[in-house]
């Protein structure tokens, strides 16, 4: 015992390297550095084009200093109203659809076939970016908020169902088991044994998604899916940077208000 201890005592100790082989370690470091240098070198920068764009950038900054809420106010207010409707409706519908998908996508409650189907729905929703879905839906349904509403509802499923399913998988088994042992039916078991454990997460995620959907609704307008984004796009096309500034300020303030509200709600849900 003490013979082996003697080999250790007096020797310096340091944390073992993550990659033990020095060859691999240094090889990876050098390869990464070479790649980064080459990658930066390959980015083409057209300085004359950047110079020409500077004046427009300056106009933009000047426009920001003098936001014009008034001259396009009717467009802005109807665009905002459309965005709010789109956001709230798609979040509510998205949540309602994600809860059953989340239950099916949690390996600890769902049988394997259900699990695979629900995971496939989530994967599909996450693989298709909002913009791509919106472009497709605008092509099918025409311009307007309906395309945006469906896009955001669909995107909400991928986001909320995945994260909620993970929370369900992390729940304390004993609590759910105790409810099952009373002879509860499946729905009662979910309501008493599972739901209370994941409720704070569900509320937090829903608030977060409301926030995301609002920001996305501004972007989706750019591809014709309605909302404040459509108003923003029109203002850009007309080079009315003062109206653009007004719209951006409204979006920023709205997001901040939502952020603040969701903070309060989440703190209360603990």
């Amino acid at each position, binding site marked *: 015992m003490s013979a082996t201890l003697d080999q250790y005592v007096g020797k310096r100790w340091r944390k073992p390297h993550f990659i033990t082989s020095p060859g691999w370690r240094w090889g990876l470091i050098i390869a990464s550095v070479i790649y980064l240098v080459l990658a930066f070198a390959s980015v083409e920068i057209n300085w004359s084009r950047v110079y020409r764009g500077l004046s427009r950038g300056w106009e933009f900054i000047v426009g920001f200093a003098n936001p014009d809420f008034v001259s396009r106010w009717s467009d802005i207010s109807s665009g905002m109203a459309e965005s709010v409707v789109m956001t709230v409706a798609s979040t509510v519908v998205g949540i309602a659809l994600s809860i059953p998908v989340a239950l099916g996508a949690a390996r600890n409650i769902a049988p394997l076939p259900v699990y695979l189907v629900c995971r496939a729905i989530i994967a599909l929703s996450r693989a298709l970016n909002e913009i791509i879905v919106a472009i497709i839906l605008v092509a099918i349904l025409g311009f307007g908020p309906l395309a945006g509403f469906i896009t955001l509802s669909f995107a909400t499923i991928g986001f909320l169902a995945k994260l909620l399913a993970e929370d369900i998988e992390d729940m304390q088994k004993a609590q759910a088991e105790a409810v099952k042992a009373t002879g509860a039916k499946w*729905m009662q078991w979910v309501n008493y044994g599972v739901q209370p454990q994941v409720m704070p997460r569900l509320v937090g995620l829903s608030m977060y998604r409301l926030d995301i959907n609002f920001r996305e609704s501004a972007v989706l307008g750019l591809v014709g899916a309605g909302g404040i984004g459509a108003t923003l796009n029109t203002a850009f096309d007309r080079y009315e940077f003062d109206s653009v500034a007004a719209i951006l300020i409204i979006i920023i303030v709205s997001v901040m208000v939502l952020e603040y509200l969701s903070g309060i709600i989440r703190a209360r849900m603990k």
Partner: protein
Amino acid sequence: MLKLEKLTKVYNTGDKALSGVDLEVGKGQVIALIGPSGAGKSTLIRCVNRLVQPTSGRAILDGVDITALGAGGLRRERRRMGMIFQEYALVERLSVMENVLSGRLGYVGFWRSFLRKFPQSDVDEAYRLLDRVGLLHMADKRADARSGGQRQRVGIARALIQDPTLLLVDEPTASLDPKTSREIMRLIVEMCRERELATIINIHDVNLAKMFVQRVVGLEAGRIVFDGAPDELVPDVLTRIYGEEDWEATIETVDDADEENDEAGK
């Protein structure tokens, strides 16, 4: 009452948790199931209400073969089997009252339970049980804000509101201090006697078991190696259950076990 015949459980990993356990528990009889960690105590009681699916053998409660039931029949039979858990297993974000009333889930429909509109008789019984375990004033407090002993009392009320004929108790005192452990054990045993419940209590604390029950069953590596009265637990028997150790101190403490020298030998 409860009869286990050749009950066997082999887990998917190949571990044989129970091998052919035969056991009979009569009405109103409280037995303590002792044995080292991993002996299969927890598996045994979970095989009775099928939180764990037994591999073979039968568990018969009042003539009903529980191991042969379908999903609906199992839910009905589970109502008659109350369970008290290690670490309480209360639903932490629900109130004390909701936890107790969850014991009635097998008897009420989904919407009633979803809207928390339980029949008045259930609510009254919940209050009576909370009063009996000394927590009446805490009915609407959240379950996770209670101390360990209080939480286990809620767990007891939840099991008893099912109006069971059989009580399965899994390490009820595992994380409680010695004094609270005795109070909880006393409460469980008293209420089982009052209601004449057949009861199996898993417990690793031999002294505590000997203090409160008349019949002790020793489980080792999935087999019953002892079944008898507490005072038959001589050093040889304890060695058979737990392995070689000096058991004299364990046996001594039972004779002079008083409230003031709690768990002296442990």
